[in-house]
């Protein structure tokens, strides 16, 4: 029904509107354990333990540190996950077997013990392809997959993305304050090429349960608005595909409805989500999370600017170059303050422009090239 409310936005022309809401109610202390992860044998298994916090959620979620976290098979196998930073527990590889069911056991330093239900170890079929379609307003990246055995039915995807972008102008010079001067910029100090990264923030799930074949065709993973910086130079997306059980799918589907699909006039009322993890010490204590197990499939796709000749990305840098005289006070005033960055020598001074036009880091990226970047 999400779409229904979108049409209602038409009525915004009539003055309907969406405003920020700050709850006048004081939210209670909850601090329920939140468990997120996926048990897999063909890649790293990682679980993050955190806690629920108060609305509006502007503090960090306190991690559960020092817990003993282990994966147990119904063949009596036990694998301990090692504590990493910030409440993460993981292991690079686990010798898991199809046909065995696995569950997660957590013992906290507070003496509480949590145990998940056993989850089928589901083989995930490979991703057939990740591709993109350019629409008038956005570019949509899709995943396609199918299971010839008709056994998977429920799928989840997550992705990481990295993109390169450039500053408006390239600088071959840099300012140093001791002594106050402008010197040549080394390649390692370049501020023209930047990289930004991100990962999925929404629940991406699909089901073929209503179809005659276990096939997912053109399932949208994300939208990139036309003109977005992500596609200004080179973009890479790494898509991971997980097979789910029906229970895990329903859990995520309800969470998706509760947290992503609200805001229509015909809203389904949000409801409490029940996972498959239970507190053994106190059965009434709610635990958030659903433990699933299976293989993970991965697919990488690049989109380069060359594939999108009409991509209307413009670096918003309206100023033309300025010439800053090579005078100490001027250098300090313009370059020392960081307001401007020198580009190249120009007669008795330096051609320069505002730093946000020259230093790509001003937009939030880093100048460190990712390890496996193609060029």
């Amino acid at each position: 029904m999400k779409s229904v409310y979108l049409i209602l936005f038409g009525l915004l022309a009539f003055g309907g509107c969406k405003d920020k809401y700050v709850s006048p109610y004081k939210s209670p202390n909850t601090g329920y354990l939140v468990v997120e992860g996926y048990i897999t044998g063909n890649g790293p298994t990682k679980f993050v333990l955190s806690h629920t916090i108060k609305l509006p959620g502007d503090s960090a979620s306190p991690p559960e540190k020092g817990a003993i976290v282990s994966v147990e098979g119904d063949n009596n196998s036990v694998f301990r996950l090692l504590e990493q930073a910030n409440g993460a527990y993981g292991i690079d590889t686990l010798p898991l077997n199809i046909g065995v069911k696995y569950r997660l056991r957590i013992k906290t330093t507070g003496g509480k013990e949590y145990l998940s239900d056993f989850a089928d170890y589901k083989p995930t079929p490979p991703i057939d392809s990740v591709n993109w379609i350019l629409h008038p307003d956005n570019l949509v990246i899709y995943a396609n997959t199918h299971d010839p055995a008709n056994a998977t039915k429920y799928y989840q995807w997550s992705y990481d993305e990295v993109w390169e972008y450039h500053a408006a102008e390239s600088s071959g010079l840099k300012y140093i304050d001791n002594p106050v001067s402008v010197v040549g910029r080394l390649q390692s100090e370049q501020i023209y090429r930047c990289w930004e990264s991100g990962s999925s923030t929404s629940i991406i799930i699909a089901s073929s349960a209503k179809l005659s074949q276990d096939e997912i065709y053109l399932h949208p993973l994300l939208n990139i608005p036309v003109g977005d910086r992500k596609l200004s130079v080179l973009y890479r997306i790494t898509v991971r595909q997980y097979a789910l059980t029906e229970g895990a799918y329903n859990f995520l589907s309800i969470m998706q409805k509760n947290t992503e699909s609200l805001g229509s006039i015909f809203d389904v009322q949000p409801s409490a989500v029940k996972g498959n993890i239970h507190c053994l010490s106190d059965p009434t204590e709610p635990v958030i999370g659903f433990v699933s197990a299976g293989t993970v499939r991965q697919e990488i796709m690049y989109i380069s600017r060359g594939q999108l000749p009409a991509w209307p990305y413009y670096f918003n840098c309206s100023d033309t170059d300025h010439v800053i005289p090579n005078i100490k006070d001027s250098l300090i005033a313009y370059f020392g303050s960081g307001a401007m960055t020198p580009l190249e020598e120009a007669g008795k001074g330096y051609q320069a422009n505002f730093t946000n036009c020259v230093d790509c880091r001003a937009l939030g990226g880093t100048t460190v090239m990712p390890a496996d970047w193609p060029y």
Partner: protein
Amino acid sequence: MRLITYFKLLLSVSFFFGMKGAFAQDAVVSLHLKQVRMWEALDGIEKQSGYRLYYDTLELDTTRIDIDVDGLSAFKALDRLLAGGEVSYSVDRKRHIFIGRGEAINTGLPPGYFEKKAPEKAAAPDDTVRDYLEDVGKEPVSTIENKLFVIGDKNVVPPPGPVHLAGYARDAKSGEPVVGASIYVENPRIGVASDQYGYYSITLPRGRHILNIQSIGMRDTRRLIMVYGDGKLNIDLRTQVLTLKKVIVSAEKASNVKRTEMGVQKIDIKTIKQVPVVFGEADVLRVVMTMPGVKTVGEASTGLNVRGGSADQNLVLFNDATIYNTAHFFGMFSAFNPEVVKDVELYKSSIPAKFGGRLSSVLDINSREGNKKEIQGSAGIGLLTSRLNIEGPLVRDKTSFILGGRTTYANWLLADLPSQYKNSRASFYDLNLNISHEINKKNSLYFTGYLSQDHFNLNNDTTYGYGNRNLSLKWKHIYNNKLYMLITGGYDRYQYSISSRQNPVNAYQLAFDINQLYFRTHFNWYISASNTVEFGVNTLRYKLHPGSYEPVGAKSLVVPDVLQNEQAQESAAYVSDKFTITNDFSIEAGVRYSVFNALGPGLVNMYAPGLPVTTDNQLGTRQYSSGKVMKTYGGPEYRISGRYVLTDNLSVKAGYNTQRQYIHSLSNTTAMAPTDIWKLSDPNIRPQHGDQVSLGLYRNFKANTIETSVELYYKRIRDYLDYKSGAQLVMNHHIETDVLETQGKAYGVELLVKKLTGKLNGWFSYTWSRVLLRQSDPNAGEVINGGNYYPANYDKPNDVTAVSNYRFTHRFSVSLNATYSTGRPITLPIGVFDYAGSQRTLYADRNAYRIPDYFRMDFSMNIDGNHRIHQKTHNSWTLGIYNLTGKKNPYSVYYVSENGRVNGYKLSIFGSAIPFVNFNIRFN
């Protein structure tokens, strides 16, 4: 006033002689006149015959006549002269001839005039009701107030006791029935009101009476009647064209103080049209929502919540047809064309025994009957909708029709959508056709056809469509003045479908429909002035297609999935008696026995007894063959109300009623969504049951021009369906595993002050009420809110509404209304956690918080064109501003995860003052 003088004379003459005039000898009359006036001819007869003639020249035909008689008796001459006219004559012993309009004046006194007892030798009472109108041959339009109507045959020795007079009150111009006209005599005080067909039946003592007739919007009138026996009298009322300088309202007006029923609100279309609504089109349901005890979850919903009932607990009848979806265009408009509607009656407490099948209320919407005299029409143009309405006689004075249509052109509004939705479309239309036919005075037929359809489409992808289809035919048969019968049959359908074709592999169509075929008989028996009995039998056959999910297009891999059909028979028999014990104390008591049979064919899921109904606890299935009864539910429903008049304008009433509901709407959305589905009770889902006690105090002020009332109620609800967390309601083969039977209670106080006459009119209502539900049975699979009572979605404790209209002149009036209510309950998150790359909200108890309070004020001006009666068109304008203060009333409050963060929003449907304009035109 010569006639009155003659009348007095007549009475004195009759008193002395006390016998019927009879004469043996006559002088002969010979007249040969051409192109003379009637009185000239009568003059000639008088001179030649020696009889003295009394007449009023105003009553005589004014056309010039020829008369050619030769050697005839005075009576033969008069017979010839007066033949074919409406004037007749009578003679007394003193050779006086009285000539007058209407039935001949009886110059003697009727037998038994002085004694109440019938003579010993009384002939067997004549069962056939003597019909005044039939005597005359042609049905006269009784528009003359000074004429004496003689009811019953003076020559027939009447049976003892009072007599019954019945007939129709009609609009003299259009022939449409006048509903709720007050018909009364002053001494003794006896009064009745005409029913929805304009039909009335009054019991009077024999003798002469002045029958007064009053109705809002009609000129007051009266009839002089001489009642000998049972008879019929149709009364034509003239429309009140000019507003009176002062309004005289009689103490006999059918008022809320006097009627036995309580918790009944009736609103006519005239009042409805005065109330400003968004987009300016008169909206029946929005006006009903201003009544005390009626609430709604918000602007985008036409669902009514009556006294703590959910929207599906209202029986919405449009001329006997059940309307399942009352919303158009995302709930912004109601499904009823205001040009066709006559009035609306809402029963929220004393539900008459003839109605049943829903727990909280009956909303009875009556459409107009078409004009029986001439073709006329009306049209209206608004910002989003237009309507056209044509009515008129098919057979003059016998058969009339009314055809109304409405459509929308809202796409311009959608053009402002973000570009990815610019191809979206939304539209609706509805059509009404009503035909009423009078076969003869005792038999009438009424046909109603209704069709509505909504479509909306999002960027050529998902298409939604839903609509109502209704047909009904009603036969009214009047056995005699005391007994009439209504037989109604019809077919109702509601359907919706959703389809999406964007992704060829997933392209699907989802469809749902509900069909019902019904047959109802209803008898109304006026035993005496103090005792009226209604009884009847209803039966209703349901057939539901609860869902089908089918592939669309060749590439679609969707596996067709069809939920098994549901069918059931719901039947009821009822009897109720309105009994006046003393003038001050009357009781209406009824019982309705309803039976519901869930019928095969069907495969019923069987669950382990005593365990939660979940798929894990399913034991197996049981197949029932076609027509086999799978489960029977039923029981008596009681409807009792009483009224005690404390003083002339103060009364107290109390009532108790019970209700059963066998059909449930399945919706876990707050507003009534177009995609809500309905579910019949079956072996796994029990019917809902409710009962209510209510008490009310009614007081009228200023000669009944101001009505006030206070009503209290307490209601219990059993087995109302709520949903488990994350319930799947669409295409669920085991829906019983996703629903919960909850127990509820609702209580409240309703205050109403109403003034419907005068320059300033309107009403003020205040309601304080609660509705709480509870699901505490751990065996049901899920305990909600720890098994404690929780407020229902529509629990809005305080609700104040004021509706006012001020008429500056009869062509210009302004309306202002204001409403305030507590925000409805909502489930808000109690915390935040990180999952799947984003912060997400944590929910716990249902409906533990509320959205901000609601306030809105609307203003409109109604400007009529000139009121000259004899012109081809009459037009009027409605201009106004909805949400005058521009307050952003949150329709909902929600939290959503966006780019990794949780953000809270208030969604207002109307965030500013919205001006509107509407043009209406009426033409002949």
